[in-house]
């Protein structure tokens, strides 16, 4: 079995990178406004479908990826302004419920527009096939996903720590009232923050479509591991999301190899253990959500 461990670990890292990117998006949204976005998966799926539609009209993969990400972020802004911002004054419970209902609506809309079965979404030909690294043969697409997600993370960090908008966002997380008192348009910030989270989800969604197949429930299947990643890594911590994602991804892959029957539940067990021992997560801050 041991010779299978290396590719399985790589697989776990790739999955983990996915969970990390989605978790960062969730975490950004949760952190600033306390919104628990159960429709996050729907946005991922939406991006996948938009990319699919563009590609079947002849555009190339890269353009479709960029366009889908932007369009989905715009949809996110509309949803945020209309449905989510009224809930900012209330407890997180309501955003959880509303986005739960929203995910049901989205799922059915996807079925009505693109059909209930999976649609044939392929990675671009230059990314299919396999690459050999030492003894291990890896599908090129997975390597690409890892690289893409690393790029996204670096870009995100640069944005948050090197731009004025990023500075304001981080400031709003610390103390939104003060920021508003200083004259910043906090509503605009919340909108931007949400759009940023959705942008990350959209990128992950298009990448996932090529790996997992594109159907109405694709994003929802990735959502639970992503929430678990947020919990394990700690809300409000980027490093936590990355480490948490890798932990979850690797745990699932390794369990699939050695104890396949437990692979679906291992992430829940992991989360339960973390919640009981260190509820703030590995890197989380105390006091957020108790």
């Amino acid at each position: 079995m041991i010779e299978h461990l290396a590719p399985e670990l790589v697989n776990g890292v790739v999955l983990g990178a996915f969970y990390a990117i989605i978790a960062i998006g969730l975490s950004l949204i949760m952190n600033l406004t306390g919104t628990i976005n159960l429709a996050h998966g729907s946005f991922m799926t939406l991006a996948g479908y938009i990319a699919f539609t563009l590609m079947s009209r002849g555009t190339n993969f890269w353009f479709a990826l960029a366009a889908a990400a932007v369009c989905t972020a715009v949809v996110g802004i509309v949803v945020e302004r209309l449905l989510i911002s009224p809930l900012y004054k209330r407890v997180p419970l309501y955003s959880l419920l509303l986005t739960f209902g929203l995910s049901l609506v989205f799922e059915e809309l996807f079925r009505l527009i693109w059909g209930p079965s999976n649609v044939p979404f392929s990675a671009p030909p230059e990314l299919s096939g396999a690459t050999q690294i030492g003894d291990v043969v890896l599908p090129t697409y997975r390597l690409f996903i890892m690289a893409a997600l690393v790029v996204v993370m670096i870009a995100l960090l640069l944005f948050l720590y090197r731009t004025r908008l990023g500075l304001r966002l981080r400031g709003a997380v610390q103390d939104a009232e003060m920021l508003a008192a200083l004259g910043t348009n906090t509503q605009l910030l919340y909108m931007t923050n949400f759009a940023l989270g959705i942008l990350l989800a959209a990128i992950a969604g298009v990448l996932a479509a090529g790996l997992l197949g594109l159907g109405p429930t694709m994003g929802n299947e990735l959502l639970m591991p992503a929430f678990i990643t947020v919990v394990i890594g700690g809300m409000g911590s980027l490093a936590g999301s990355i480490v948490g994602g890798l932990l979850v991804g690797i745990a699932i892959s390794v369990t699939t190899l050695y104890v396949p029957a437990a692979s679906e539940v291992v992430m829940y067990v992991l989360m339960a253990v973390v919640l009981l021992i260190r509820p703030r997560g590995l890197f989380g801050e105390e006091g957020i959500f108790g």
Partner: protein
Amino acid sequence: MTMRSANAVGVSFLGVLLVLLPVLLPAVGLNISLGTTVILFALAASSVNILLGFTGLMAFGNAAFFGVGAYGSALFIADVNANLILGLLVGAACATLAAVIVAPFLIRRRGIYFSLLTIAFGQVFYFIAYRWSGVTGGEDGFSMTKPPILGGSTPTLNGASYYYFCLAIFALLLFVLFRIVRSPFGLTLQGIAQNEARVRYLGINSDRFIFVALVLSGFVAGVGGALYSVSIAFSYPLLMDWHQSGDFVMMVILGGVGTIWGPVLGAAIYAIAQNVLSSFTPAWQIIIGGMFIFFVLVFPKGLLGLGEARRRREVAAAQDPDVAVAPALEVGLLEGRHP
């Protein structure tokens, strides 16, 4: 008009409606077992309400208790003794046992962490039902035939008679819940919902109360599930999935959180709307999801919560994670950080 008489009138009205349901439903082109489903889902929603409405805890895993009750009674009736009453007791006992097993873990956290833990444990039960297919039939489900009420040659309840049987048990449980809510125990739960820190400062071990609330919730959901698998003569893993739990939460929100009859009304609206809408359009899920979104935005207290007085609640600014304040349904934990 005082609360007492308002309640009395409301309760009598709903009571009469429920007693006449086996006549009303066919009159509008629906079948009686849909009424049974409404009653049993109302039990499941009530079990969620014990945690959500009275204790202020968002439970997203009650479908697991419902499902354990369903499989418990189904397996007992099919493989051990075809006796409805015994099967019901066994199913309820299994669900209560499940609650006793998971409660020690759940009581250690509050808020969103509590909710995620309920989802986690709920999913573990779901996967057990799915994987242990030698016993449960896995995704193919588990068939059974309706058993006689006390085994042997006693009559088998069907249709309207089964509905009234369920209604009787439901009424009994609802009355018990009504009394519990007004009892010192129930009042303590509501105190925990409003301000757990205060309750603990008074020397009350809130963990123990939440434990009992969880076990009670598991029991009520288990009764509903045990009766449901007999009603449809089938058990299946999706009964335990967290989406089913989400549906039960939806029913509570629609009907009115923290009221005794709210979950019943919510279950009725949800079950009947789904049944009727799906006969007319494949887009019924959009309508139900949209209706839910509308309620969350505009009527968060649900239909029966409309007349309720608002209450403000203090929020401790610095949170000690061990004694976190449970989120109530008005002002929240993050008030200091909210826009």
